[in-house]
Every structure is written in structure tokens, then in C-alpha cells.
């Protein structure tokens, strides 16, 4: 049964017709066309679909679309300001964390969720956040280094 939800994505309001089975990731990718949010698994494991919802990092494949009604959503597409990259993006690039790049949007958003709440997160807390993200390319070393560099850049801002 079709129903309508309204939500704000990257500061733009949308009203979307849904059938009920859709998750937030389906709305973002298929209805709004924001394909930077990636789908890598069926069981909430990989973290590639991470976005901010009401300021919290969430896996958008686990949020039923109707639960996102009224929410304020931020996706990877909103992080860079024109050609000026967000410090987290800059740091991950500089540390060599970007290989195939499929997990990277989710990791950027996961770290964004962490640092906007707790910029002085400990290394253990950074690792706790990154544990929500699977990467098959890097062995995580460059991602962890990139996360620490991002923190440094954000603090200096």
C-alpha cells in the first residue's frame, strides 16, 4: 500500500511515495539518486551504507523507510563543499586508504558521526567505530592512520 514519507536529505526536503518494504538506502539510491551510499551485504555487516540520521551514524539498509519519516539525513554527497573536500576525505586520501573505494563513503560517514560528537575520541574509540566497517583491500592500516589524521585536521580547523 503506497504511503508518503517526508524527510530532509542534505538539507533538501523530499516527499517520497513508498510501498512499505523499502529501507532508507532504497530511498536514497533509487528515489533520490544519491548513489554514494553503497550496498555491500544483506545482514548489516559491512557498513558501506552508513549515513547520518538525526546526527547519528546509522546503517541505512537497516532503517525502514517509514522510520526515516521526518528525519534529517546526511549522505556522503554533502560532505565536500564544491571542490573543497571534507578533512576526513582529505585525510583518507592522504593516508592511502582509498583503494577500490567501495567501503570509503561509509567509512567517511562513520568517522563523521564519531568526530562530530567526540572530536577527542581515543584510538580505541576510533577502532570501535571502524569495526563497524568491512574493507577487503587495505588491511585497515591506512584507514586507521587516515582516521587519526582526520581527527588532527578537524582539531586544527
Amino acid at each position: 500500500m503506497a504511503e508518503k514519507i517526508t524527510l530532509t536529505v542534505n538539507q533538501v526536503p523530499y516527499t517520497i511515495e513508498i510501498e512499505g518494504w523499502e529501507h532508507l538506502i532504497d530511498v536514497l539510491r533509487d528515489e533520490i539518486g544519491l548513489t554514494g551510499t553503497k550496498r555491500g551485504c544483506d545482514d548489516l555487516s559491512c557498513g558501506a551504507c552508513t549515513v547520518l540520521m538525526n546526527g547519528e551514524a546509522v546503517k541505512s539498509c537497516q532503517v525502514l523507510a517509514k522510520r526515516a519519516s521526518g528525519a534529517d539525513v546526511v549522505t556522503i554527497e554533502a560532505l565536500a563543499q564544491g571542490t573543497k573536500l571534507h578533512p576526513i576525505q582529505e585525510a583518507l586520501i592522504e593516508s592511502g586508504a582509498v583503494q577500490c573505494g567501495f567501503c570509503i563513503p561509509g567509512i567517511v560517514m562513520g568517522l563523521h558521526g564519531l568526530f562530530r560528537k567526540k572530536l577527542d575520541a581515543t584510538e580505541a574509540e576510533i577502532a570501535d567505530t571502524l569495526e563497524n566497517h568491512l574493507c577487503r583491500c587495505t588491511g585497515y592500516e591506512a584507514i586507521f592512520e587516515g582516521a587519526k589524521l582526520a581527527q588532527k585536521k578537524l582539531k586544527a580547523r
Partner: protein
Amino acid sequence: MSLKYVGKNITRPDAVQKATGKARFLADIKLPGMLYAAILRPGHAHARIVSIDTSEAEKCEGVVKVITGKGCSQKYRYGDNIRDFVPMADEKVRYIGEPLAAVIAKNPHQAKEALKKITVQVHPLPVYTQATDALADGATLIHEASGDYWHLPGVGPKPGTNIATHYRLKKGDAAKGFAESDVVVEAEFKYPFGSCAAIEPHGSIVWFHEDGMIEIWSSSICPFIIREEVARVYDRPESDVRVHIPEVGGCFGYKSDITVEQTVAYIASFVPGHPVKWVATRKEDFTSTLLGHGMVIRMKIGAKKDGKLMALATTVYHSTGAYADTGLHVSIAAAHNSTGAYEYPNCDLETFLTYTNTPPIGAWRGYGHPEAQFAQERLIEILARKLGMDRFALREKNYLGPGKITSLGEHLWETNGSIQKCVDVVKRTVFDKPRPPEDPEYYYGRGFAAIMKSPKGAPFSSKGAYLKFNADGSVVINCGGAEVGQGLRNVVRLVAAETLKMPPERIHVYTEIDTQFSPWEWQTIGSMFTKQGGRAVWRACLKAIAQMKQTASQVLRCDVDLLDYDGEYVFLASDPSVKVEVTKLVRGYMYENGMVVGEVVQACADARLPRYSGFDPATGQGSMGVSYTFGAQAAEIRIEKKTGKIIVDHFASCFDVGRVIQPQQIRGQVTGGVVMTVGAALCEEVRFDQDGKCVNPLFRKYRFPTIKDAPKKQTVDFVETPGVIGPYGARGIGEHPVIGPPPAILNAIHDATGIDFFEIPVTPEKMKKALDEKGSGGEK
């Protein structure tokens, strides 16, 4: 050689697109009129199809067409090596993930919903998940007509059995070698099924255009094989099939060879005019694409008392799954690379590539090397103990190197690199300090593995480059090599920058591959792109420079061999003030009156491994283009006594790569590769029950390392003994790092506890059980 760009940490050209989420992967592509497919998978792993009723599914909302494979095995059979694949099950199903029927609908959700309405009746047949069972006398045949399949010469199924190919390599006289040995050790090793598990699942879009063109997008690394095979099956000229490769979100092997594309093409062929998209769920990515490994390896080594290796016998039982086309060369590579990094004067190495009722096996980073050298590096450690020799001393007596001969019969030279130098580095990093003593909580151990990587490919595995100078002197380069994250676009750019003597930012490299515009490349496999693709780029650059010099010789009125080039000018070597700008040469040189002389500067080149050949059926020997790479790896581990949990505190790797092209990227290749098979060693296994059902086709159940499972520290070093084929002496690195971790870790487990494991993964449960069995309370 002093280099300006090669060897520098210059940012990869695709980083920004990927970090901003703008890079376009297969799932992100939307085309006008696009329809979506969902594919039904069978409930049995081996069964005769009695009936498929699609009538209810056809009535569902949004459904355009429902398709079965009835009759498809005659016209649509495919395969690059053994033509045993079908795009959809016809008459019988052979594994649990096989396509059995498909729904095409207006959206993916409708397609998936309609699948539930299809009813299937089958007659179950015996299921074999292991080669050793499928090889038993009287086993039911998985392919009754395997003898009729087209295959490459020298390989192929043995009719009346489940053997898809038997390969045997003989060097010297193994029986004599064992007879002359003072000590013989033997054991059986198991490297279970694994998934490459790229974070981006497989997927394809196929569009049969009304005008006869077939257009395909796929998350693949072999666009030209897809083009060739689809053209053959659908009886079109290859030029009428156009394959696009968007960004690929990780490969690690299983997106090589043609995998899902023929199935999506078959489905799309029922709705000409509409692009049809299919993207695997993670479950399908496990059960319905390609798996890796599936090998049981029996190995026997004979040696003299002084440690001189005399003979090696290896038998691989390879559970290659329901279709053998993609597993064939993995199996052969496992056999002939089972010597590891050692010279054995006498070898008898064979593999039984065996049909089983499991998903087909294909490339998995390392391509037979990790499996076979897991056995070699474990068994040589056991041999050292039996001989009472130091593990390094035994190995050092037998390393391959200049003057030594591989199992294939190839002579090695200085230019193949130095394993000894790599070993020395790893020894210093790991073994030259004292091992921590056992404490109440942990056992500590260190383990070593030497590795050898051959470039398993095919004789025709050339790579190409197209290079074009623009009017402002900037350059565009197209190659057919698939960027899957390994960073080859940056390799192309840096090699070109160095050779053309211009800043990398003046060189733009390709994003997607398009068979209509990209140079031909067989497929991007075997850790060969830097070496071969890099060489093709280097050659294309030299051709472009030669073109400019040719034109300049007319303009400057001198012999061409008196000219030099510095990136901005072509000039007279004896008097550099006599010169002409590159920008004035790139479209030919135009005189003031508008007259133009000389060629437009655009070059095309290819490169291949010299004298690479297939194998001689009598001996199994042949040539890999004498293109080997060596390395050494070591693990420092801790085993928690209470739980059996194995923690890798430090992992060290050193490879002789000839030349480091980009330090940060090559380190990333190694750190990523190491973690991949730390996973294989400690937690990864795709498991099937006795009915052939996959019991863990989800990331939550197929655990691969998270950041917390990765080694606490990695040391990565390189030796740079230049090779002669690759650009600036470079060799490959992509697959090498995954070879050593499982044997190094299992050797470290023995070092820590005195317990020998012969199969992976060594989970905490298995470790704990072994500790408990060894002594009460897990005491050493």
C-alpha cells in the same frame, strides 16, 4: 637510475571520485527503459529437474517475463577453457547457487517477490561436496556428457568419471629421487573453500539493442573475454558486442573469467530493446559466483641428511565445483607451483580437477600458489625438525635463484630477484630478537614462510596502451587493465610521466574500460599489470617521442638520431638552443603559411611475457616467461590459553619487486593481502552441509577480519633487484602477500605450542581443543 616520478607518493587519480561517493559502480548505473532481473536458486545441490511452473509468477505485478533454462544447454553452452557452463540449469541442477529460473520485472522488488511464486519439482541425486567423494568408484556423474565438451588442447574431462582434468608435471625422476633420499616426510593439507568477498557484489547489465548490438556493463576484469564469449554464443561479430567496465569495488580474483554475464545475457535476450540489470545479493555473491581454493593436497618431500632436497611429490584433489572452466588453471598452477621457493631436482606433481556439487571455483588472489605453498611451507618446517636442522639453514640450502631450475624447467637469473635478501630482512625484523617467554595467559610463537609467485596466465595474455597527445601537450592514456583498487591507473600515470618527462598531472588516465575504445587486453590477472601493462605504456611513450622526433627532424633539418627530448622541447643534442616545442609537434608541425608536416602524435603499443607458452602434455613442463617473484613473510603471534584465540601481534613481509612504483600503494597491497589470509588462516571458510547447502553465505557468518582482527603491526619491506621486462625494472605484487600468512601463522602455532595443524582455518575452538588434548588445562 635517478627517477623523478616513479617511486614517489603521488596521489592516485581516482581517489577524489571514490572518497566523495561519485565514482560510478555497476549498481549505480540507471539506463532508460531498464528492467530488473531476480534469479531463482534450487533447493537441491544435485537434482534432475522434473518441472518448473512459472504461471503464477507471470501474473505478479510488474512482471514482464519469466524465464527458465529449458533447452539452453545446446545453444548457449560456454567456457573459455572447458565449455561446460550453462547460463541456466537445463534438465539438471548441479549446485545450490545455480540459476534455475529468472523473473524480469519493472523493479527489483517485484522481480524478487514473483520468484516466490515459481514452483519446482526435482528428483534429487547424490551430492558430492568434496573431490575425494566425487572420485569414488560408482559415484554419480555430475556431467554425464563431459566427454562432448569443447576444451583447450591438453586438458579436458575424463568421460565416465567426475574428473574435469588431470594434469601431471614431471621433472627428473621422482621415484629415483625418493630412493636416494635419507629422509622422507609426507602429510595431507586442506585449504577449504573461501570467498574473495569483495565489498561490492557481482552484477551485470545486458542490453540487446534492436539494431543487433549487444551492450554490457559488468563488475568484471575481463571485458574482452565477455565480448568474445557473448559474441560467439549469440552469433554476432565481436565488434557488435560492446562491454563497459565501470569502477570495480574489489576483485581479488573472482571477477575474472566470465561468471554471471552469460546468465544475465541469456535472461536479457528474452526482452530485446530493454537493458536488464542484475546485482547479486551477498548470499548470491557467495553461492552463485565463484569460490576459491577447495583443495586437499597430499605432499611428500625427500631429502638428504645434509638438507639437500631430492624429490617432491604433490597430489592435489581439487573440488572445483559444478563447472570446471574457471578452476582449471588454478588447479594446474597449484601443482606446478607446489615447489614453493625451492629447487627440487625431481618432481612428480599432479592435480585432479574434480566436479563437485558446490559453486564453481575460480581465481582467488594467488591462484593456486597460497594453497600449494601452504603445504610446502608447513611440510618443509616438519622436514627441518626431522633432520634436526635450523629452519633457515634448510631453506637456504635449497632456494631457487640464479642457475637453478624451476619445476617447469625454466632457468632462473639474477633478474628474477633475490629471495635470500628478502629472507635476511624478515629475519632481522622478526627472528633476531628474543621470543617473549610464555606467561600465565599466553603462549608466544614465531613462524616463517618463503614464497614464490609465478605469473600464471595464458600465452596470449598481452596488454595494450593507447596514448594521445593533446594540442596543449597534455596526454591521455587508455589501457584495458581493470582498476579494482590495486592502483594501476596511478602506475600507468607514473610510468608515463617518467618516460615522457612531464608532471603526472598533465597525464589523464582512463576511467571506465569500453571495448569499443580501449586497447585489447586478455584480462587483468596474475599480478601482471604493472609489469606488462606498464611495459605497454612505456613502449607507447617511446613511440610518441619517436614520432615527435621524426617531425622535428624535418623542422630542424637534421638527422633524427641527433635529437633529444625533455618533455617540453625536442632539441638538437649538440646545440640545445636549436629546438621546437612539443606543443608545436603534437598535431604535426604547422609552418607560418599553414602547411603541416609530420604525424599526429598518438601511439599504440602492447606488451607480453616473452616466450610464455602452454605446457608440453608429455611432461607438463612449459614456460612462464621466466617471470617469477620471490619474498619472505613471518608472523609473531600470541595464543590465549583460556580461549585458544590466536592474536597476530606482528606480521612482516619483504618481496623483491624489482622497482617500487608508488610506495604508499604498494604498502597498501601488502597490508591488505596479509590481512586477507590472516583471515584464511584463522577464521574464513565457506561451509557446505552434506546436502550441498551453504551454511554461512553472509558476512556475519563468513567472518573475515575486521580492524580488530588485523595484525597489531605490519612491517613491509622491499628489495629492488631490477627485472628486465617491467617498466623501470618493476615486477608484480598483487597476489604475493596472501601466500605466506597461513603457513607462517601455523608454523608460529607450532613454535608456540608444539602443535601441528594441517588445515585452516585454525579457529579458537580448534586451537583450544588441541591445547586441551595436548595436556590438561592447556599446559604446554
